[in-house]
């Protein structure tokens, strides 16, 4: 500060400038910090005319925050403003001493881990309960035909189909092409080119179509369902349904679950065709194998049970996706940012569940 002049004496006197707002205050604090001696300092406020709330707060806390520093010649305007300002914190923030964290650092760490673990376990319990509830709600709905908005199931089917059909077909075609190209080379070494049909057909129907379709459903349908239900929860629309005597877990979830159950078989059939078509194209280009020969060869190994198992698996994945998405959507917090977080979590949860369930199927089936 150019205007600050220090006078030697028993205590240092710092004359403050005319304009003392937050920016100048920072400079003064810097000066105080850099001060060489540790004798008492007197801040001379006599020139201060312009000030802001930072100045007032600084003045109020001078004694506790800056030991050895005191104020002098505070102009009346500033003193009055400080007195008025200082009363505000008492109103807004009643003294609430923060509870001192107990225990050592590591025990706190383990405590936090244990709490998080328990929260996860509780969430898992709630999720499984919701799964059971949904089965019950679907049963109730199919018997009594009540509690669901008329036509909603159709809407959801179109919506889910519209979201996932094109991308499922495109991606599964590419997956078909990719695995045929990678395996074609190996097969040629053994002179077993013709088995490309068996390989592609089996892998597609049993494994790749269910897995890829499930993952795409998680990313498109699951994310959409969570985003929609979470924003309905945040906007109190779900509460509104409840007090209208409408059960949100039925009204919102049953149409989506029925829709996914009906859409998945169509998706799987299309995806199987797209994936095998990828294999047919590669076989034709690399080995000159005729499509009819490809299909004949494939049908030697693959039969309708492979298709059926792939279908069953995908339906289960679809259910996991929709129930997981609904769970994340309906248990969201109360702020808009949590909608985004819930959507991300829903996709991760769905993909995790799909892979775990797939693994369980693998153990059971083979």
């Amino acid at each position: 500060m150019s205007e600050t002049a220090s006078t030697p004496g028993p205590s240092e006197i710092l004359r403050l400038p005319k304009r003392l707002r937050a920016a100048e205050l920072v400079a003064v604090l810097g000066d105080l910090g850099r001060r060489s001696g540790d004798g008492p300092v007197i801040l001379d406020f006599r020139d201060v005319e312009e000030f802001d709330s930072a100045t007032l707060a600084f003045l109020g806390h001078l004694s506790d925050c800056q030991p050895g520093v005191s104020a002098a010649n505070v102009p009346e305007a500033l003193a009055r403003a400080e007195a008025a300002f200082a009363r505000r914190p008492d109103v807004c923030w009643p003294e609430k001493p923060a509870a001192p964290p107990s225990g050592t650092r590591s025990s706190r760490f383990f405590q936090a881990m244990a709490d998080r673990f328990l929260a996860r376990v509780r969430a898992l319990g709630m999720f499984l309960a919701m799964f059971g509830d949904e089965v019950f709600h679907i049963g109730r709905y199919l018997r009594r035909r009540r509690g669901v908005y008329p036509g909603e199931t159709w809407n959801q089917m179109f919506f889910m189909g519209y979201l996932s059909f094109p991308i499922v077909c495109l991606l599964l075609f590419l997956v078909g092409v990719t695995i045929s190209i990678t395996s074609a080379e190996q097969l040629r070494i053994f002179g077993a080119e013709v088995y490309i049909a068996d390989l592609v057909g089996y892998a597609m129907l049993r494994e790749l179509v269910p897995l890829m379709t499930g993952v795409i459903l998680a990313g498109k349908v699951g994310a959409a369902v969570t985003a929609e239900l979470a924003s309905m929860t945040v906007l109190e629309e779900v509460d509104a349904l409840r007090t209208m005597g409408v059960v949100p877990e039925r009204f919102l979830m049953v149409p989506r679950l029925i829709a996914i159950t009906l859409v998945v078989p169509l998706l799987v059939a299309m995806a199987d065709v797209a994936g095998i078509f990828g294999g047919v194209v590669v076989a034709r280009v690399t080995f000159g194998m005729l499509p009819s020969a490809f299909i004949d060869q494939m049908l030697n190994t693959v039969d309708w049970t492979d298709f059926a198992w792939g279908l069953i698996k995908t339906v289960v994945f679809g259910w996991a996706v929709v129930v997981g998405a609904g769970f994340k959507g309906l248990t969201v917090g109360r702020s808009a940012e949590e909608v985004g977080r819930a959507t991300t979590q829903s996709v991760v949860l769905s993909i995790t569940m799909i892979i775990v369930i797939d693994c369980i199927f693998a153990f059971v089936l083979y």
Partner: protein
Amino acid sequence: MDIITARDLTVGYGRTEVLRDLAFAIPEGLITAVVGVSGSGKSTLLKTLAGLLPPLGGGFEFAGSPVDYRSEASLGRLYARIGVLYQDGALLNGLSLYENVALPVRMHYPELPEAVVRDMVHAGLAQVEMAGSAEKFPSELSGGMRKRGALARALVLDPHVVFCDEPSSGLDPITSRLLDDLLLRLKESFKMTLVVVTHELRSIERVADRVLLLNDGGLRYAGDYADLAASDDGFIRTFFLRKGHHDDA
């Protein structure tokens, strides 16, 4: 007769108690105003009474039987007899205003012919002067219009008790007066019980028979609106520092 009686009722979220040990009664067929400064817990209390937020302690009776938050049947009986107007309306964004108002009818009486539903919806929208906007979606309505539409939805099944969270906030004086008149008409012609959260002193004066004043985590005053004038409690006097009332006296 009291339609709602609360005993030792503590409401809040998780571990945060917002209002402690409330004891009050809401008489049937009258308008009770719930007042208090912003953040005092008016909406929270309403949510608990409407069966959305389990009490942290104590409980309340609705129409003579205790409301059990663990029993779906008990909550269902409660929901069947109440209508709720939410602070921000809470219309379903995916449905038109018409479909929003028709929703409770369709869900509870799927057998009703469409013509009957249509008449009910139009009558409901007309009483909040929203008949002209029936085909609009909530995103195409102003805040006040959404609120009026939501009120039509809360009323369409003629509930016994209507909870309104700030029905007239964000409305101009004329529409707000219209809403007050509607509340009075509901009370007089349908013997409805209304529990209304409001900040509008003029509106309280016009419609309220009873007042619950919340302050500082508890109930500061519960009684007839008419008796407020006699109170010498400083907080009550400040809160209701009113011109109208003195004029009457």
